[in-house]
């Protein structure tokens, strides 16, 4: 153990230098880092540790996509297409029922069932919807694969829409990613009051245009006809509005939306423009329905229902609804970004203000420095010269941890800082094991060279066993932990690896070179 080969030595030194190099950007001022960025070759490391939201301040939102809603919508459309197919094929099914993930069409007559079956198969061929005959029933449903695909697609679309909405608010570096089957994680650095973003994300923003049924009233106790439904008005005071169920146009045909002020009244309004197809439809609808009321519905609430005074052929219009400028702006964002495929619910929220984060960083730094100082002194007291060697290795170990964190761009959280401080305490363990062993060998009467050799040899299996078991605990914590706990596990794992390197190799280099140079007759340790 006291012969260190040339290449081993180079590798040991190379790793230490690399660690210090990667850690260095963290202590440079922003100006110095900018200088490095601009003037030095790009292979020079210049990344700092990536601070978690609990340290830099920000908001963490976990959103749940209401998949049941999506599936319900899909089943609705399966029902609608089954009805329309039976109309065109002139078949009268005995019943069309909903099942868990699809519909069941019952047809007792064999010929009609065969016709219906082939028509349904043809219609759903491209969609990944399974069509199956069983007895006198035809089942049309989303199978497991199709459901999974549907969920994935919904999550992807939702992430896209969420990103667009958040980008519109000017939040920098948001992290938006899927988590599990039906959740989306949104992290917003620097946002400590996520109210506005939550209210933006809380709306599906499905906009549709309907004619108002002017023949009936929602206060009528006899109810309204089947093709009409009553929706509340957004201002909350007006009576519910009876609208025709069929949507004539929807928000996905919008080309653009912006908040402006009405030229006559000076009120904040949202102006919008349809794309080509939408503009043509909008023109036709307004031409054919002059004098009628035309309702603009957002998420099942009537925003406004103005009278169509004349055909609007340019494809643009404006929505006025007693908005505040802020509300008009938010609505234009929602319309520009598009509708979410399903409603979202916030199931977890954690927001940390910038001052708490800064305090935590300061506290963490102070605790690290005090802990480090105490241990350095303690090791010197216990082992003298050898203690100093362990101390130098400990400092390089710190640099390695910070360097690795910067290199891997792992997120450092407050528990992560605790992990580092704890690692400092435990890092010297390997050295202590070796030094104690050397003491024992000296006491047993060995020469210094032989005692040191035996000391490293004897302690090695203990060091490995002890560290591997701790590493297993840290790894499990990393795999199964969430959020800040994960940050703790990361620093702990990194710390175990670096402290084994620094205790086994780095300290040994110091010890061996001291031994070669001085060739002591007795060993004080």
């Amino acid at each position, binding site marked *: 153990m006291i012969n260190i080969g040339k290449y081993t030595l180079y590798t040991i030194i190379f790793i230490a230098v690399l660690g210090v190099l990667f850690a260095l950007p963290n202590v440079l001022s922003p100006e110095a880092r900018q200088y490095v960025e601009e003037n030095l070759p790009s292979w020079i490391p210049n990344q700092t540790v990536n601070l978690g939201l609990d340290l830099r301040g920000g908001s963490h939102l976990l959103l749940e996509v209401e998949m049941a809603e999506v599936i319900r919508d899909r089943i609705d459309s399966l029902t609608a297409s089954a009805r329309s197919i039976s109309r065109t094929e002139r078949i009268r099914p005995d019943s069309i029922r909903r099942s868990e993930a699809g519909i069941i069409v019952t047809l007792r007559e064999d010929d009609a069932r065969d016709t219906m079956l082939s028509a349904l198969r043809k219609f759903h061929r491209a969609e990944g919807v399974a069509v199956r005959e069983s007895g006198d029933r035809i089942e049309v449903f989303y199978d497991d694969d199709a459901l999974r695909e549907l969920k994935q697609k919904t999550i992807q679309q939702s992430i896209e829409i969420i990103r667009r909405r958040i980008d519109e608010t000017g939040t920098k570096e948001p992290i938006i990613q899927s988590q599990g089957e039906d959740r989306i994680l949104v992290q917003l650095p620097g946002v400590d009051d996520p109210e506005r973003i939550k209210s933006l994300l809380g709306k599906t923003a499905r906009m549709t245009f309907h004619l108002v049924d002017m023949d009936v009233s929602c206060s009528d106790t006899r109810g309204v006809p089947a093709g009409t439904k009553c929706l509340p008005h957004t201002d909350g005071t007006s009576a519910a509005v009876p609208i025709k169920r069929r949507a004539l146009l929807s928000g996905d045909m919008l080309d653009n939306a912006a908040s402006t002020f009405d030229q006559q009244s000076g009120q904040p309004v949202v102006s919008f423009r349809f794309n080509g197809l939408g503009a043509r439809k909008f023109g036709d609808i307004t031409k054919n329905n002059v004098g009628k009321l035309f309702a603009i519905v957002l998420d099942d609430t009537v925003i406004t229902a103005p009278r169509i005074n004349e055909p609007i052929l340019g494809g643009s219009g404006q929505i006025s609804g007693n908005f505040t400028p802020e509300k008009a702006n938010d609505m234009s964002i929602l319309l520009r970004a598009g509708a979410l495929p399903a409603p979202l619910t916030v199931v977890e929220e954690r927001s*940390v*203000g910038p001052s*708490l984060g800064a305090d935590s960083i300061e506290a963490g730094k102070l605790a690290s420095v005090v*802990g480090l100082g105490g241990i350095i002194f303690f090791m010197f007291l216990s082992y003298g010269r050898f203690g100093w060697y362990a101390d130098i290795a400990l400092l390089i170990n710190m640099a390695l941890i910070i360097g690795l964190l910067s290199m891997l761009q792992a997120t450092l959280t407050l528990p992560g800082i605790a992990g580092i401080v*704890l690692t400092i305490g435990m890092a010297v*363990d390997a050295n202590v094991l070796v030094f104690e062993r050397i003491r024992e060998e000296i006491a047993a009467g060995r020469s210094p060279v032989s005692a040191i050799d035996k000391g490293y040899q004897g302690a090695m299996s*203990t060091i490995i066993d002890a560290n591997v078991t701790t590493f297993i*605990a840290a790894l*499990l914590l990393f795999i*199964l932990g969430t959020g800040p706990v994960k940050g703790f596990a990361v620093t702990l794992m990194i710390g175990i690896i670096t402290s084994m390197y620094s205790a086994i190799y780095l300290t040994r280099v110091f010890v061996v070179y001291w031994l070669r140079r001085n060739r002591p007759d007795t060993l004080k340790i």
Partner: protein
Amino acid sequence: MIKILPENVSIPFMKAHKIAFVLSVIAVAISLFFIFSKGLNFGIDFAGGIMMEVQLDEQPDLNQMRSDLNNIGLVGSVSIQEFGSVRDLMIRVQEQPGGDKGQQIAIDSIRSALGTDGVEYRRVEFVGPQVGDELIRKGLYAVLGAMFGILMYIVFRFQVQFSLAAIAALFHDSILTIGLFAWLEMEFNLSTVAAVLMIAGYSINDTVVVFDRVRENLRRYAKKPLEDLFDESINSMLSRTILTSGTTLLALVALWAFGGEVIRGFVDALIWGVLIGTYSSVFVATPLLKYFKLQRDEI
């Protein structure tokens, strides 16, 4: 250089092991009693609910504030605690009905009751009950998974007997830690789970170090009585045990004193765990080996 212990120290640990066993069994029984009778004071991570940390410019009248916040129509009582200083408060209330909007309304009404002048909202957290359940499940998996992994490694490296003794010590330490949380009604949250796992890691580390020496001595002295052999192994590792526990405690005390209020509960658990873990490797794990019928020729 200061030697922590004189050379050739030999403390008859094995003589005391029966007393230690009795103490440990009593401590575990009391812990289990507290865990099942008082239950754990789950934080919002596991129980769900709303938590706000606020800093005030001036020292508030806590009683007044309590009665104010308990009169704004929230479900369940609003708890207010000092958090590190008299101006820092931790406000907690259970999950409110009405889903996402219900929480929002609750947070807003607490904000409007406290006002905005001289009040800084440093942290606002809300966890839904479903997420809480998942976090409990994941935490439990992490603890059990880690124990199983460690068990397998020790079976692989040592003998099954060592592994059983180590796991017994591990359960001992985990139960005493959780018991402490139940007894003192300290908040049990995600970072507590991390702390328990960390304690498991530390405790096993300490145990393995002594076991390693036991194994070595078993090979070296074929005839020595087991009790003497255990005593010698513990004694020769004693100075290391004290030193490493010492440096680790030093780091933890620094963290406790300067690391801020947010992680103090976490550090409390760790300090306790290091003490317990050190005790258990000497007084629980190693003496237990005696009762597990070590096969000397298989070492």
